[in-house]
């Protein structure tokens, strides 16, 4: 399992991006996206904003599970295409957490949801910082470390 996470600001540009792999099932925590997918990932998430904006009015929950998918080049040596899924979390400030993962969410829906909850906590703590303004890029290395710790814990 590989994940690509982006926090999208209200002007549609990412303010934080991160790529990681699973630590479960003997994974070493590094992502295994193919080079083609690596360069596509930001664009795929950007296109998913369309769907978030559409469905955000139809649901009460902040967590949006596998609301979009992308059929793209697979990992490893096999060149067959595989399905990628995109899950998201909409914060109350209309900042979006979007994540691409190469497995349907039904297997680890809860853990992704938990991860997003913790990420929301981290994000709100960042917002509380008087020196941080909305839509600024989050460059704090502490934040990065904490996100990765969360990922290790849940994903």
């Amino acid at each position, binding site marked *: 399992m590989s994940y690509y996470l982006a926090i999208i600001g209200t002007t*549609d540009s990412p303010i934080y991006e991160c790529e990681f792999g699973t630590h479960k099932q003997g994974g070493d925590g590094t992502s295994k996206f193919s080079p083609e997918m690596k360069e596509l990932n930001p664009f795929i998430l950007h296109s998913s904003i369309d769907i978030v904006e559409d469905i955000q009015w139809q649901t009460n929950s902040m967590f949006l599970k596998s609301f979009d998918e992308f059929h793209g080049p697979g990992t490893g040596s096999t060149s067959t295409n595989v399905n990628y899924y995109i899950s998201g979390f909409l914060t109350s400030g209309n900042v979006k957490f979007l994540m691409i993962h190469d497995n349907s969410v039904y297997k680890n829906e809860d853990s992704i949801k938990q991860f997003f909850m913790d990420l929301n906590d981290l994000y709100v703590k960042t917002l509380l910082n008087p020196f941080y303004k909305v839509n600024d890029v989050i460059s704090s290395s502490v934040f990065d470390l904490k996100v990765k710790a969360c990922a290790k814990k849940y994903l």
Partner: protein
Amino acid sequence: MMDHNLTSNNIQFYLDSHKDISELITQYQLNPKKTSFDCRSIIVNAFSPQVTVSCSPEVDLIADNFGFPSFFQLLKPFGDKVINQFQVKDSQMASRTTQDFSLRFTRPLNDLVSVQQAQQQQHSTSSSSFSGNNNNKLGQLFSYQSLELLIDEYIQSITDRTLAEEQAGNHQLVKVLSDSVYIKFFTKLMSSSYMTSFETMNHPVSSFLVITARNTLEDAKQQLLQFRQSSIPSYMNIDDILPLMIVVHDERDTQQEKTAYQLRESIKSQLGIEVFVLGIITSLESQVAGESRKLNPPVLTSIDDELQTLHLPHADSKELPLSNIKTIYRLLKEIIQKQIIPFMERKISVWDTEVVIPRKSFSGRFFSVSKRYFGGNSSSNGKSDGSGNGNGNNYDPLTCAYPQKSNEMIIRKLADWSFMLRDYRYAYSTYELVKKDFLSDKAWPHLASAQEMAAMSLLMGATNITSKLKKDTIDPLLDDSNYTYLSRCGLKTYALRSMIIVSELFCNLKDDWMSAPSAIRWLRKAIDDNLLGRLGKCLVLERIGYVYGLYVESRAKVIINRKLLTATPHNKQTETEAEAESEETQQHLNPHKLRRNNMATIGLTRHRKSTLWKLLAAKEWDPSSRPLQVKLKLNEVEHQYKQSQFTSREGTLYAKLDRLTKDRLS
């Protein structure tokens, strides 16, 4: 007269011959769905009656005078669209008017059959390793290599012009040029005249036998005999092809005219077929007198034919005197209205009373059910040619064909002909009727084709469909049809054609918000099932981008259009002033309030999706081999990605493609 037929298929020809194409460009400007409408009219043209043309050597000499290799090549451009008010009666005997009609002219019947057999033999020897499945008996619609080659040639031929126009900043024309590639691809998918046992669209409806006034009655008799004795496949019926004789004479030679009319009378009385007289200017010398005009290149030439003529030196210098063009159009109008349409209507009503009505009646249903369940003797099946295989059905699984006079073949033909006459509702009910027979006979290619056509006639007949109809009827029909084409018959080209047609037809429907997802679904399926060549894949990716661009809620469409209107230059200044004002008031309220400028249309468009697919298409075009195509796509995505900083970062796909194309093009 021909100026009404502006299609982007011939854009290159128009530009070469300095034709005024401003009308075409404004159409593109005004209507974002113009290309889809074009595709629909191509579909109508492509499913129009096929007409074989066989001529005496003297007639070919006349064609040769004007630089055409044969008279059929001369006629071909005329068939693309004959504009007139044609009266067509539908199955309820109600009269309708159509604004135009098309005929697809092809080679003489004998040539068609023999060429096809040769192709088939070649095909079956080359794929003999796959013998065992019966798929190699069914020929494909076209060959992938030829299609790719043709598209490649076309792109190369417009590259220089597109580049020049792009640098000159002539964006509208560039748009038309780049769209024309997809239109070309679409047209070539449709323009195969390959005859198969499972669809009768390509079976000729009529046959023109052309002679000159110099020919004798004996020659005419010979031609008719030759036509009657053509060796056609067992699934075709020569009685369903209407022979028509055309006598050509020189317009200025009154003596010839007289003999032509005499010949007409004697042929009519002795051979009993309809004869038309065509008086045209027959040689180039007399052309000086009248104005002459270049003919539009025919749109629906098959891929192989077009590849052959592509590099002929005199391919583009064919001119006909204006009076000839008018006369030929007049003749075609007369033939269509007086002969071809009535002939088809007559046949349809005969088949309807003989085959369809008995089947729909109570006893007919009872018979067909009893036949199915109690198996039994094919003797009860009076109409069969005796080639039934003893299971009570007429289907011959070895040749994958029904005999020509079997009920199934006739019903299928009936449906196809009503489709050609644009009676889509009746065509749909007929396809549905015959579908069950094909299923119980396990006639897979027939079944797939009937399902495809049933869905197509539904979509062609409607301007809007309910989601229930789509979910319960159209989707299952198409799913089944595609599954059968691909898994049971191995007919990739047919499956591809049906997917592309269906997605264009969905785009033609009124409610984009409802139909765009289906259109996208079928295009994506074509890519995911690996049905496309390399260039085809690029084009379809582009097309997905285009359909996502259409994917707009109707409310949002109104708002966007209003915004476009107010954004015209003279309003701009007032707008900025107004904006500045509103900014001031907002600053009073809350300096930290976040602003959004698309509040009204939020979530009701798919522009970002559209950009993603255009970017994917750009990547697929490959900057090192086709930098111009990549550049055109990048231009389209620029306005969306320009706002966000992440796109221009080092190492992202967009930045990489941008740099590579700039390197290549400079």
